[in-house]
Protein backbone atom coordinates (compact mmCIF):
# COMPACT_ATOMS: atom_id res chain seq x y z
CA UNK A 1 0.00 0.00 0.00
CA UNK A 2 1.44 3.38 -1.03
CA UNK A 3 1.07 6.52 0.98
CA UNK A 4 1.87 10.20 0.72
CA UNK A 5 2.62 12.19 3.87
CA UNK A 6 2.27 15.97 3.64
CA UNK A 7 4.59 17.69 6.08
CA UNK A 8 5.32 21.27 6.99
CA UNK A 9 8.46 22.89 8.33
CA UNK A 10 7.60 25.05 11.34
CA UNK A 11 9.36 26.92 14.16
CA UNK A 12 10.19 24.72 17.16
CA UNK A 13 7.37 24.86 19.73
CA UNK A 14 9.82 26.18 22.34
CA UNK A 15 10.63 29.21 20.15
CA UNK A 16 10.06 32.79 21.18
CA UNK A 17 8.26 34.53 18.36
CA UNK A 18 9.37 37.94 17.04
CA UNK A 19 7.65 40.01 14.38
CA UNK A 20 9.57 40.94 11.22
CA UNK A 21 9.80 44.48 9.87
CA UNK A 22 6.61 45.31 7.99
CA UNK A 23 4.50 43.71 10.72
CA UNK A 24 2.98 40.95 8.59
CA UNK A 25 5.30 38.01 9.19
CA UNK A 26 7.37 36.49 11.96
CA UNK A 27 11.10 37.07 12.01
CA UNK A 28 12.75 33.75 11.08
CA UNK A 29 16.25 34.90 12.09
CA UNK A 30 17.75 32.47 14.56
CA UNK A 31 14.64 30.28 14.72
CA UNK A 32 15.07 26.53 14.81
CA UNK A 33 12.69 24.79 12.39
CA UNK A 34 11.28 21.30 12.88
CA UNK A 35 8.83 18.92 11.20
CA UNK A 36 5.42 19.99 12.56
CA UNK A 37 4.73 17.62 15.51
CA UNK A 38 1.39 16.32 14.19
CA UNK A 39 3.03 15.64 10.82
CA UNK A 40 5.61 13.48 12.62
CA UNK A 41 2.72 11.37 13.91
CA UNK A 42 1.27 11.18 10.38
CA UNK A 43 4.67 10.06 9.07
CA UNK A 44 5.00 7.38 11.74
CA UNK A 45 1.56 5.99 10.79
CA UNK A 46 2.64 5.80 7.13
CA UNK A 47 5.96 4.13 7.95
CA UNK A 48 4.18 1.52 10.12
CA UNK A 49 1.78 0.84 7.25
CA UNK A 50 4.75 0.35 4.89
CA UNK A 51 6.40 -2.01 7.38
CA UNK A 52 3.19 -4.05 7.68
CA UNK A 53 2.01 -4.10 4.08
CA UNK A 54 4.87 -2.90 1.88
CA UNK A 55 4.73 -0.07 -0.65
CA UNK A 56 6.24 3.39 -0.75
CA UNK A 57 6.05 6.31 1.64
CA UNK A 58 6.50 9.61 -0.22
CA UNK A 59 6.94 12.73 1.88
CA UNK A 60 5.70 15.91 0.28
CA UNK A 61 6.18 19.49 1.31
CA UNK A 62 5.34 22.89 -0.14
CA UNK A 63 7.68 25.55 1.14
CA UNK A 64 10.85 27.59 0.67
CA UNK A 65 14.32 26.05 0.22
CA UNK A 66 14.81 25.47 3.97
CA UNK A 67 11.84 23.04 3.95
CA UNK A 68 14.11 20.47 2.32
CA UNK A 69 15.49 19.84 5.82
CA UNK A 70 12.05 18.56 6.83
CA UNK A 71 12.08 16.10 3.93
CA UNK A 72 15.58 14.85 4.93
CA UNK A 73 14.38 14.38 8.49
CA UNK A 74 11.34 12.41 7.29
CA UNK A 75 13.48 10.25 4.99
CA UNK A 76 15.73 9.48 7.94
CA UNK A 77 12.67 8.27 9.85
CA UNK A 78 11.53 5.78 7.26
CA UNK A 79 10.01 7.56 4.24
CA UNK A 80 11.67 6.37 1.00
CA UNK A 81 10.69 9.04 -1.54
CA UNK A 82 10.38 12.82 -1.35
CA UNK A 83 8.91 15.69 -3.33
CA UNK A 84 9.54 19.37 -2.68
CA UNK A 85 7.25 21.93 -4.28
CA UNK A 86 9.23 25.13 -3.91
CA UNK A 87 7.45 28.36 -3.17
CA UNK A 88 6.60 30.93 -0.51
CA UNK A 89 3.96 28.86 1.24
CA UNK A 90 3.79 31.60 3.89
CA UNK A 91 2.04 33.80 1.32
CA UNK A 92 -0.55 31.14 0.46
CA UNK A 93 -3.86 30.61 2.26
CA UNK A 94 -4.78 27.06 3.30
CA UNK A 95 -6.75 26.44 0.11
CA UNK A 96 -3.77 27.63 -1.95
CA UNK A 97 -1.57 25.14 -0.09
CA UNK A 98 -4.16 22.38 -0.55
CA UNK A 99 -4.30 23.08 -4.31
CA UNK A 100 -0.52 22.70 -4.58
CA UNK A 101 -0.51 19.49 -2.52
CA UNK A 102 -3.47 18.03 -4.46
CA UNK A 103 -1.74 18.69 -7.81
CA UNK A 104 1.47 17.08 -6.50
CA UNK A 105 -0.35 14.07 -5.02
CA UNK A 106 -2.00 13.36 -8.39
CA UNK A 107 1.50 12.65 -9.78
CA UNK A 108 2.36 10.15 -7.00
CA UNK A 109 0.86 6.62 -6.72
CA UNK A 110 -1.06 6.42 -3.43
CA UNK A 111 -3.79 4.65 -1.47
CA UNK A 112 -3.67 6.87 1.61
CA UNK A 113 -2.73 10.50 2.21
CA UNK A 114 -1.62 11.31 5.73
CA UNK A 115 -1.07 14.70 7.33
CA UNK A 116 -1.12 16.24 10.80
CA UNK A 117 -4.45 17.59 12.05
CA UNK A 118 -2.91 21.07 11.87
CA UNK A 119 0.42 22.73 11.19
CA UNK A 120 1.82 23.87 14.50
CA UNK A 121 2.21 27.65 14.41
CA UNK A 122 -0.28 28.66 11.75
CA UNK A 123 -2.76 26.47 13.65
CA UNK A 124 -5.41 26.55 10.92
CA UNK A 125 -6.30 22.86 10.72
CA UNK A 126 -7.81 23.38 7.27
CA UNK A 127 -5.57 21.70 4.71
CA UNK A 128 -6.62 18.04 5.34
CA UNK A 129 -10.35 18.41 4.60
CA UNK A 130 -9.61 20.87 1.76
CA UNK A 131 -7.29 18.32 0.19
CA UNK A 132 -9.96 15.62 0.57
CA UNK A 133 -12.48 17.80 -1.25
CA UNK A 134 -10.06 18.73 -4.05
CA UNK A 135 -9.11 15.08 -4.60
CA UNK A 136 -12.69 13.87 -4.13
CA UNK A 137 -11.75 11.51 -1.30
CA UNK A 138 -13.43 10.70 2.01
CA UNK A 139 -11.72 12.23 5.06
CA UNK A 140 -11.19 11.06 8.62
CA UNK A 141 -9.99 13.93 10.73
CA UNK A 142 -8.21 14.08 14.12
CA UNK A 143 -7.44 10.37 14.27
CA UNK A 144 -6.19 8.64 17.42
CA UNK A 145 -6.40 4.99 16.30
CA UNK A 146 -6.08 3.46 12.87
CA UNK A 147 -6.40 0.01 11.35
CA UNK A 148 -6.09 -0.89 7.68
CA UNK A 149 -7.91 -3.85 6.15
CA UNK A 150 -7.95 -4.94 2.52
CA UNK A 151 -9.00 -1.77 0.69
CA UNK A 152 -10.56 -0.16 3.72
CA UNK A 153 -9.69 1.58 6.95
CA UNK A 154 -11.20 1.87 10.42
CA UNK A 155 -10.25 4.94 12.42
CA UNK A 156 -11.06 6.58 15.74
CA UNK A 157 -11.88 10.28 15.39
CA UNK A 158 -11.60 12.49 18.46
CA UNK A 159 -14.64 14.65 19.21
CA UNK A 160 -15.58 16.62 22.36
CA UNK A 161 -15.28 14.22 25.29
CA UNK A 162 -15.78 11.12 23.14
CA UNK A 163 -14.60 9.38 20.01
CA UNK A 164 -16.24 8.10 16.86
CA UNK A 165 -15.23 4.87 15.20
CA UNK A 166 -15.49 5.43 11.46
CA UNK A 167 -14.94 3.15 8.49
CA UNK A 168 -14.32 3.92 4.84
CA UNK A 169 -12.70 2.70 1.64
CA UNK A 170 -9.48 3.83 -0.03
CA UNK A 171 -8.09 6.20 -1.11
CA UNK A 172 -8.66 8.33 1.97
CA UNK A 173 -7.28 11.42 3.70
CA UNK A 174 -6.32 10.82 7.34
CA UNK A 175 -5.24 13.63 9.70
CA UNK A 176 -3.24 12.59 12.74
CA UNK A 177 -3.85 13.60 16.34
CA UNK A 178 -1.53 13.11 19.28
CA UNK A 179 -2.00 9.64 20.77
CA UNK A 180 -2.13 7.84 17.41
CA UNK A 181 1.45 6.62 17.90
CA UNK A 182 4.84 7.55 19.34
CA UNK A 183 7.01 8.80 16.46
CA UNK A 184 10.42 7.12 16.29
CA UNK A 185 13.73 8.96 16.33
CA UNK A 186 15.99 8.85 13.31
CA UNK A 187 18.79 6.28 13.54
CA UNK A 188 22.24 6.74 12.02
CA UNK A 189 21.49 4.11 9.39
CA UNK A 190 18.35 6.00 8.36
CA UNK A 191 20.18 9.31 8.22
CA UNK A 192 22.80 7.78 5.91
CA UNK A 193 20.12 6.17 3.70
CA UNK A 194 18.20 9.45 3.54
CA UNK A 195 21.19 11.20 2.02
CA UNK A 196 21.07 8.86 -0.99
CA UNK A 197 17.44 9.67 -1.87
CA UNK A 198 17.03 12.29 -4.59
CA UNK A 199 14.35 14.84 -3.72
CA UNK A 200 12.00 15.47 -6.63
CA UNK A 201 11.90 19.30 -6.87
CA UNK A 202 9.01 21.07 -8.57
CA UNK A 203 7.70 24.59 -8.94
CA UNK A 204 4.05 25.63 -8.65
CA UNK A 205 3.86 26.10 -12.41
CA UNK A 206 5.45 22.65 -13.03
CA UNK A 207 2.26 21.26 -11.50
CA UNK A 208 0.10 23.17 -13.97
CA UNK A 209 -1.11 25.67 -11.38
CA UNK A 210 -1.33 29.42 -11.68
CA UNK A 211 0.64 31.13 -8.89
CA UNK A 212 -2.00 33.85 -8.66
CA UNK A 213 -4.55 31.24 -7.53
CA UNK A 214 -2.18 30.03 -4.79
CA UNK A 215 -0.41 33.10 -3.39
CA UNK A 216 -2.06 36.17 -1.82
CA UNK A 217 -5.53 34.94 -2.63
CA UNK A 218 -8.76 34.60 -0.56
CA UNK A 219 -7.13 35.32 2.84
CA UNK A 220 -4.69 38.20 3.35
CA UNK A 221 -2.68 38.91 6.47
CA UNK A 222 -3.27 42.51 7.54
CA UNK A 223 -0.92 42.45 10.52
CA UNK A 224 0.66 40.18 13.08
CA UNK A 225 1.21 41.33 16.63
CA UNK A 226 2.54 40.04 19.92
CA UNK A 227 0.02 39.89 22.77
CA UNK A 228 0.17 42.52 25.48
CA UNK A 229 2.72 41.40 28.07
CA UNK A 230 0.98 40.10 31.18
CA UNK A 231 2.66 41.43 34.27
CA UNK A 232 1.28 38.86 36.68
CA UNK A 233 -1.26 39.65 39.34
CA UNK A 234 -1.38 39.28 43.07
CA UNK A 235 0.87 36.67 44.68
CA UNK A 236 0.01 35.30 48.12
CA UNK A 237 1.68 33.00 50.60
CA UNK A 238 -0.04 29.63 50.69
CA UNK A 239 1.62 28.17 53.78
CA UNK A 240 -1.73 28.33 55.56
CA UNK A 241 -3.67 26.06 53.18
CA UNK A 242 -7.08 26.85 54.66
CA UNK A 243 -6.59 30.61 54.36
CA UNK A 244 -5.23 30.25 50.82
CA UNK A 245 -8.25 28.15 49.80
CA UNK A 246 -10.61 30.78 51.22
CA UNK A 247 -8.76 33.50 49.31
CA UNK A 248 -9.05 31.56 46.03
CA UNK A 249 -12.78 30.96 46.52
CA UNK A 250 -13.27 34.66 47.26
CA UNK A 251 -11.42 35.55 44.06
CA UNK A 252 -13.49 33.12 41.95
CA UNK A 253 -16.71 34.51 43.48
CA UNK A 254 -15.89 38.23 43.31
CA UNK A 255 -13.81 38.56 40.16
CA UNK A 256 -14.84 35.67 37.92
CA UNK A 257 -18.45 35.50 39.24
CA UNK A 258 -18.18 31.77 38.76
CA UNK A 259 -19.39 30.43 42.10
Amino acid at each position, binding site marked *: MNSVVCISHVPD*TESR*IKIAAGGKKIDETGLKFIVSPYDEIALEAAVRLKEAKGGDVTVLTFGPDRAQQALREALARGANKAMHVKGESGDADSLGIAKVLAAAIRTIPHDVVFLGKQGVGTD*NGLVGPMLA*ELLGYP*QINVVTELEFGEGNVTAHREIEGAEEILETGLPVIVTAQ*KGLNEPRYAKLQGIMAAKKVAVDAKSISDLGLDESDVLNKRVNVVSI*ELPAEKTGGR*KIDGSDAKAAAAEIVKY*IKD*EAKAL
Partner: protein
Amino acid sequence: MTVLVFTETNDGKLKKASREALTIGRKLGAGDVVAFASDASVAEEAGKFGATKLYVTNVAGYLTEPYTAALAQVIKDTQANVVLFGGTSNGRDLAPRVAARLDAGVASDVDRLEWTDGKLRARRPVYSGKAFATVEVTSNPAIATTRPNAFPAEEAGGGAAEVVNVSADATSRVKLVETKVPEAGELSIAEADIIVSGGRGLKEAANFSYIRDLAHAIGGAVGASRATVDAGWIDHQHQVGQTGRVVSPNVYIAAGVSGAIQHLAGMSSSKHIIAINKDPEAPIFRVADLGVVGDLFQILPELTEEVKKAKAH
Protein backbone atom coordinates in the same frame (compact mmCIF):
# COMPACT_ATOMS: atom_id res chain seq x y z
CA MET B 1 -26.55 40.48 2.44
CA THR B 2 -26.81 37.23 4.41
CA VAL B 3 -24.83 35.66 7.24
CA LEU B 4 -25.29 31.90 7.48
CA VAL B 5 -24.37 30.14 10.73
CA PHE B 6 -23.79 26.39 10.95
CA THR B 7 -25.30 25.27 14.26
CA GLU B 8 -25.26 22.02 16.21
CA THR B 9 -27.65 20.72 18.78
CA ASN B 10 -27.50 18.60 21.85
CA ASP B 11 -30.72 17.19 23.38
CA GLY B 12 -32.85 19.63 21.39
CA LYS B 13 -30.82 22.68 22.41
CA LEU B 14 -28.22 24.71 20.54
CA LYS B 15 -24.65 23.98 21.57
CA LYS B 16 -22.88 26.83 23.32
CA ALA B 17 -20.42 27.27 20.42
CA SER B 18 -23.42 27.64 18.08
CA ARG B 19 -25.07 30.27 20.30
CA GLU B 20 -21.76 32.16 20.35
CA ALA B 21 -21.43 31.98 16.55
CA LEU B 22 -25.04 33.18 16.08
CA THR B 23 -24.42 36.10 18.43
CA ILE B 24 -21.29 37.35 16.67
CA GLY B 25 -22.96 36.66 13.30
CA ARG B 26 -25.74 39.06 14.33
CA LYS B 27 -23.34 41.65 15.75
CA LEU B 28 -21.33 41.78 12.50
CA GLY B 29 -24.17 43.78 10.97
CA ALA B 30 -23.35 42.23 7.63
CA GLY B 31 -26.93 41.26 6.85
CA ASP B 32 -29.79 38.94 7.80
CA VAL B 33 -28.77 36.02 9.96
CA VAL B 34 -29.95 32.55 8.95
CA ALA B 35 -28.93 29.22 10.45
CA PHE B 36 -28.31 25.65 9.36
CA ALA B 37 -29.19 22.78 11.70
CA SER B 38 -30.11 19.12 11.76
CA ASP B 39 -32.97 19.51 14.25
CA ALA B 40 -36.05 21.68 13.57
CA SER B 41 -36.87 21.80 17.28
CA VAL B 42 -34.26 24.56 17.80
CA ALA B 43 -36.15 27.00 15.53
CA GLU B 44 -37.40 28.96 18.52
CA GLU B 45 -34.00 29.14 20.22
CA ALA B 46 -32.23 30.03 16.94
CA GLY B 47 -34.80 32.82 16.52
CA LYS B 48 -33.99 34.17 19.96
CA PHE B 49 -30.37 34.44 18.91
CA GLY B 50 -31.33 36.39 15.81
CA ALA B 51 -31.82 33.80 13.03
CA THR B 52 -34.77 34.58 10.77
CA LYS B 53 -34.66 31.22 8.99
CA LEU B 54 -33.51 27.76 10.00
CA TYR B 55 -32.42 25.46 7.19
CA VAL B 56 -32.82 21.88 8.38
CA THR B 57 -30.97 19.01 6.72
CA ASN B 58 -32.54 15.58 6.22
CA VAL B 59 -29.42 13.85 7.64
CA ALA B 60 -29.60 13.73 11.43
CA GLY B 61 -26.16 12.52 12.56
CA TYR B 62 -23.05 14.41 11.49
CA LEU B 63 -21.10 12.98 8.56
CA THR B 64 -18.76 15.13 6.49
CA GLU B 65 -19.96 14.42 2.97
CA PRO B 66 -23.77 14.78 3.29
CA TYR B 67 -23.32 17.87 5.48
CA THR B 68 -20.99 19.41 2.90
CA ALA B 69 -23.57 18.79 0.17
CA ALA B 70 -26.44 20.22 2.23
CA LEU B 71 -24.55 23.27 3.48
CA ALA B 72 -23.12 24.11 0.04
CA GLN B 73 -26.70 23.93 -1.27
CA VAL B 74 -27.95 26.35 1.40
CA ILE B 75 -25.05 28.76 0.77
CA LYS B 76 -26.05 28.84 -2.92
CA ASP B 77 -29.77 29.21 -2.16
CA THR B 78 -29.28 32.02 0.36
CA GLN B 79 -26.34 33.62 -1.51
CA ALA B 80 -24.69 33.92 1.89
CA ASN B 81 -21.78 36.38 1.96
CA VAL B 82 -20.49 35.23 5.32
CA VAL B 83 -20.59 31.67 6.70
CA LEU B 84 -19.71 31.07 10.35
CA PHE B 85 -19.04 27.84 12.22
CA GLY B 86 -18.60 27.38 15.96
CA GLY B 87 -15.14 25.86 16.38
CA THR B 88 -16.31 22.41 17.50
CA SER B 89 -14.91 19.14 16.13
CA ASN B 90 -17.65 19.04 13.52
CA GLY B 91 -17.40 22.74 12.65
CA ARG B 92 -13.67 22.38 12.12
CA ASP B 93 -14.19 19.23 10.04
CA LEU B 94 -16.86 20.77 7.82
CA ALA B 95 -15.78 24.39 7.24
CA PRO B 96 -12.64 23.61 5.20
CA ARG B 97 -14.40 21.00 3.06
CA VAL B 98 -17.22 23.42 2.23
CA ALA B 99 -14.68 26.18 1.58
CA ALA B 100 -12.76 24.02 -0.91
CA ARG B 101 -16.00 23.20 -2.73
CA LEU B 102 -16.80 26.92 -3.09
CA ASP B 103 -13.21 28.17 -3.61
CA ALA B 104 -13.63 30.30 -0.48
CA GLY B 105 -11.11 31.49 2.11
CA VAL B 106 -11.37 30.56 5.79
CA ALA B 107 -10.18 32.33 8.92
CA SER B 108 -10.08 29.61 11.54
CA ASP B 109 -10.29 29.72 15.33
CA VAL B 110 -10.95 33.47 15.38
CA ASP B 111 -11.41 35.40 18.61
CA ARG B 112 -12.44 38.75 17.05
CA LEU B 113 -14.56 39.29 14.01
CA GLU B 114 -15.83 42.36 12.18
CA TRP B 115 -17.39 43.31 8.89
CA THR B 116 -15.57 46.35 7.47
CA ASP B 117 -15.85 47.87 4.00
CA GLY B 118 -17.58 44.77 2.71
CA LYS B 119 -14.87 42.46 3.99
CA LEU B 120 -14.67 39.97 6.83
CA ARG B 121 -11.80 40.90 9.12
CA ALA B 122 -10.76 38.46 11.83
CA ARG B 123 -8.18 38.19 14.55
CA ARG B 124 -6.80 34.76 15.27
CA PRO B 125 -4.15 33.43 17.62
CA VAL B 126 -1.11 31.96 15.87
CA TYR B 127 1.83 30.07 17.40
CA SER B 128 -0.75 28.99 20.02
CA GLY B 129 -1.33 32.53 21.17
CA LYS B 130 2.32 33.66 21.19
CA ALA B 131 1.15 36.09 18.47
CA PHE B 132 -2.13 37.30 16.95
CA ALA B 133 -2.73 37.66 13.23
CA THR B 134 -5.37 39.94 11.78
CA VAL B 135 -6.57 38.60 8.45
CA GLU B 136 -9.04 39.66 5.81
CA VAL B 137 -11.07 37.09 3.95
CA THR B 138 -11.59 38.43 0.45
CA SER B 139 -13.62 35.61 -1.12
CA ASN B 140 -17.39 35.45 -1.46
CA PRO B 141 -18.53 33.79 0.68
CA ALA B 142 -16.06 34.59 3.43
CA ILE B 143 -15.83 31.80 6.01
CA ALA B 144 -14.72 31.75 9.65
CA THR B 145 -14.71 29.28 12.53
CA THR B 146 -15.06 30.87 15.96
CA ARG B 147 -12.98 29.92 18.96
CA PRO B 148 -15.17 28.47 21.75
CA ASN B 149 -15.62 30.88 24.70
CA ALA B 150 -14.14 33.86 22.80
CA PHE B 151 -17.52 35.42 22.02
CA PRO B 152 -20.47 35.92 24.37
CA ALA B 153 -23.77 34.14 23.70
CA GLU B 154 -26.52 36.80 23.94
CA GLU B 155 -30.15 36.52 22.94
CA ALA B 156 -31.70 39.25 20.79
CA GLY B 157 -35.30 38.32 21.55
CA GLY B 158 -36.52 37.43 18.06
CA GLY B 159 -39.43 35.12 17.29
CA ALA B 160 -39.04 31.54 16.09
CA ALA B 161 -37.00 31.12 12.91
CA GLU B 162 -38.93 29.96 9.86
CA VAL B 163 -38.04 26.32 9.15
CA VAL B 164 -36.92 25.49 5.60
CA ASN B 165 -36.23 21.85 4.79
CA VAL B 166 -33.12 21.06 2.81
CA SER B 167 -32.75 17.86 0.87
CA ALA B 168 -29.32 17.16 -0.53
CA ASP B 169 -27.39 14.05 -1.45
CA ALA B 170 -27.23 11.98 1.74
CA THR B 171 -24.57 9.56 0.48
CA SER B 172 -21.58 9.09 2.74
CA ARG B 173 -18.60 6.91 1.94
CA VAL B 174 -17.59 7.14 5.60
CA LYS B 175 -19.76 5.06 7.93
CA LEU B 176 -20.12 5.69 11.64
CA VAL B 177 -19.61 2.34 13.36
CA GLU B 178 -19.90 3.51 16.96
CA THR B 179 -19.53 6.52 19.25
CA LYS B 180 -17.47 5.74 22.32
CA VAL B 181 -17.53 7.83 25.47
CA PRO B 182 -14.30 6.78 27.19
CA GLU B 183 -14.39 8.72 30.44
CA ALA B 184 -18.06 9.00 31.24
CA GLY B 185 -19.23 12.23 32.79
CA GLU B 186 -16.02 14.16 32.13
CA LEU B 187 -16.31 17.59 30.58
CA SER B 188 -14.16 18.44 27.55
CA ILE B 189 -11.61 21.21 28.03
CA ALA B 190 -12.55 22.62 24.62
CA GLU B 191 -15.75 24.28 25.75
CA ALA B 192 -15.48 24.31 29.55
CA ASP B 193 -15.99 27.56 31.49
CA ILE B 194 -13.67 26.37 34.24
CA ILE B 195 -10.56 24.23 33.83
CA VAL B 196 -8.47 22.73 36.62
CA SER B 197 -5.07 21.67 35.29
CA GLY B 198 -2.35 19.53 36.81
CA GLY B 199 1.35 19.43 36.04
CA ARG B 200 4.47 17.56 37.01
CA GLY B 201 4.11 18.89 40.55
CA LEU B 202 1.50 16.16 41.08
CA LYS B 203 4.44 13.72 41.22
CA GLU B 204 2.50 10.67 39.97
CA ALA B 205 -0.52 9.61 37.92
CA ALA B 206 -2.68 8.67 40.90
CA ASN B 207 -2.45 12.21 42.24
CA PHE B 208 -4.58 13.49 39.37
CA SER B 209 -7.36 12.60 41.82
CA TYR B 210 -6.59 15.94 43.55
CA ILE B 211 -7.32 17.72 40.25
CA ARG B 212 -10.39 15.59 39.43
CA ASP B 213 -11.92 16.14 42.86
CA LEU B 214 -11.67 19.92 42.53
CA ALA B 215 -12.86 19.88 38.91
CA HIS B 216 -15.84 17.77 39.91
CA ALA B 217 -16.72 20.02 42.86
CA ILE B 218 -16.47 23.23 40.84
CA GLY B 219 -18.13 21.84 37.70
CA GLY B 220 -15.05 22.19 35.51
CA ALA B 221 -12.94 20.14 33.12
CA VAL B 222 -9.62 18.44 33.88
CA GLY B 223 -6.61 19.88 32.04
CA ALA B 224 -3.01 18.69 31.98
CA SER B 225 0.47 19.83 31.01
CA ARG B 226 2.42 18.15 28.23
CA ALA B 227 4.86 16.61 30.71
CA THR B 228 2.07 14.67 32.45
CA VAL B 229 0.59 13.48 29.14
CA ASP B 230 4.01 12.42 27.84
CA ALA B 231 4.58 10.54 31.10
CA GLY B 232 1.35 8.64 30.48
CA TRP B 233 -0.39 9.96 33.62
CA ILE B 234 -3.44 11.14 31.71
CA ASP B 235 -5.00 10.94 28.25
CA HIS B 236 -3.88 13.54 25.63
CA GLN B 237 -7.48 14.79 25.29
CA HIS B 238 -6.75 16.75 28.47
CA GLN B 239 -3.57 18.42 27.23
CA VAL B 240 -3.48 22.21 27.21
CA GLY B 241 -0.81 23.93 25.11
CA GLN B 242 0.75 24.18 21.72
CA THR B 243 0.53 20.48 20.93
CA GLY B 244 -2.71 20.11 22.87
CA ARG B 245 -5.73 22.38 23.01
CA VAL B 246 -5.60 26.15 23.14
CA VAL B 247 -8.25 27.15 25.66
CA SER B 248 -9.75 30.37 26.97
CA PRO B 249 -12.12 29.54 29.84
CA ASN B 250 -13.47 32.02 32.35
CA VAL B 251 -11.42 30.43 35.14
CA TYR B 252 -8.18 28.47 34.73
CA ILE B 253 -6.66 26.89 37.82
CA ALA B 254 -3.13 25.52 37.34
CA ALA B 255 -1.73 23.35 40.14
CA GLY B 256 1.83 22.08 40.01
CA VAL B 257 2.23 23.44 36.48
CA SER B 258 5.53 25.31 36.13
CA GLY B 259 4.43 27.13 32.97
CA ALA B 260 6.60 26.04 30.03
CA ILE B 261 6.27 28.47 27.11
CA GLN B 262 4.15 26.03 25.14
CA HIS B 263 1.72 25.58 28.05
CA LEU B 264 1.44 29.34 28.63
CA ALA B 265 0.69 29.80 24.93
CA GLY B 266 -2.26 27.45 25.29
CA MET B 267 -3.95 29.06 28.29
CA SER B 268 -2.79 32.64 28.83
CA SER B 269 -5.87 34.10 27.13
CA SER B 270 -8.04 32.58 29.91
CA LYS B 271 -10.00 35.33 31.64
CA HIS B 272 -9.10 34.54 35.28
CA ILE B 273 -5.95 32.56 35.98
CA ILE B 274 -5.12 31.07 39.37
CA ALA B 275 -1.78 29.33 39.86
CA ILE B 276 -0.73 27.14 42.78
CA ASN B 277 2.95 26.24 42.83
CA LYS B 278 5.57 25.73 45.51
CA ASP B 279 8.27 27.46 43.44
CA PRO B 280 7.79 31.26 43.73
CA GLU B 281 9.88 31.73 40.57
CA ALA B 282 7.69 29.43 38.41
CA PRO B 283 6.90 31.13 35.05
CA ILE B 284 3.18 30.34 35.51
CA PHE B 285 3.04 33.21 38.04
CA ARG B 286 3.83 35.69 35.27
CA VAL B 287 0.42 35.07 33.69
CA ALA B 288 -1.53 34.36 36.90
CA ASP B 289 -4.05 36.90 38.17
CA LEU B 290 -3.88 35.20 41.55
CA GLY B 291 -0.72 33.28 42.41
CA VAL B 292 -0.52 31.07 45.48
CA VAL B 293 2.94 29.97 46.57
CA GLY B 294 2.37 26.75 48.46
CA ASP B 295 1.91 22.99 48.53
CA LEU B 296 -0.83 21.80 46.19
CA PHE B 297 -1.32 18.62 48.25
CA GLN B 298 -2.33 20.80 51.21
CA ILE B 299 -4.22 23.51 49.32
CA LEU B 300 -6.27 21.52 46.77
CA PRO B 301 -8.22 19.42 49.32
CA GLU B 302 -9.01 22.57 51.32
CA LEU B 303 -10.03 24.36 48.14
CA THR B 304 -12.29 21.47 47.11
CA GLU B 305 -14.02 21.66 50.52
CA GLU B 306 -14.40 25.47 50.31
CA VAL B 307 -15.88 25.18 46.81
CA LYS B 308 -18.36 22.55 48.00
CA LYS B 309 -19.42 24.88 50.82
CA ALA B 310 -19.77 27.84 48.45
CA LYS B 311 -21.85 25.71 46.05
CA ALA B 312 -24.11 24.51 48.87
CA HIS B 313 -25.16 28.08 49.74
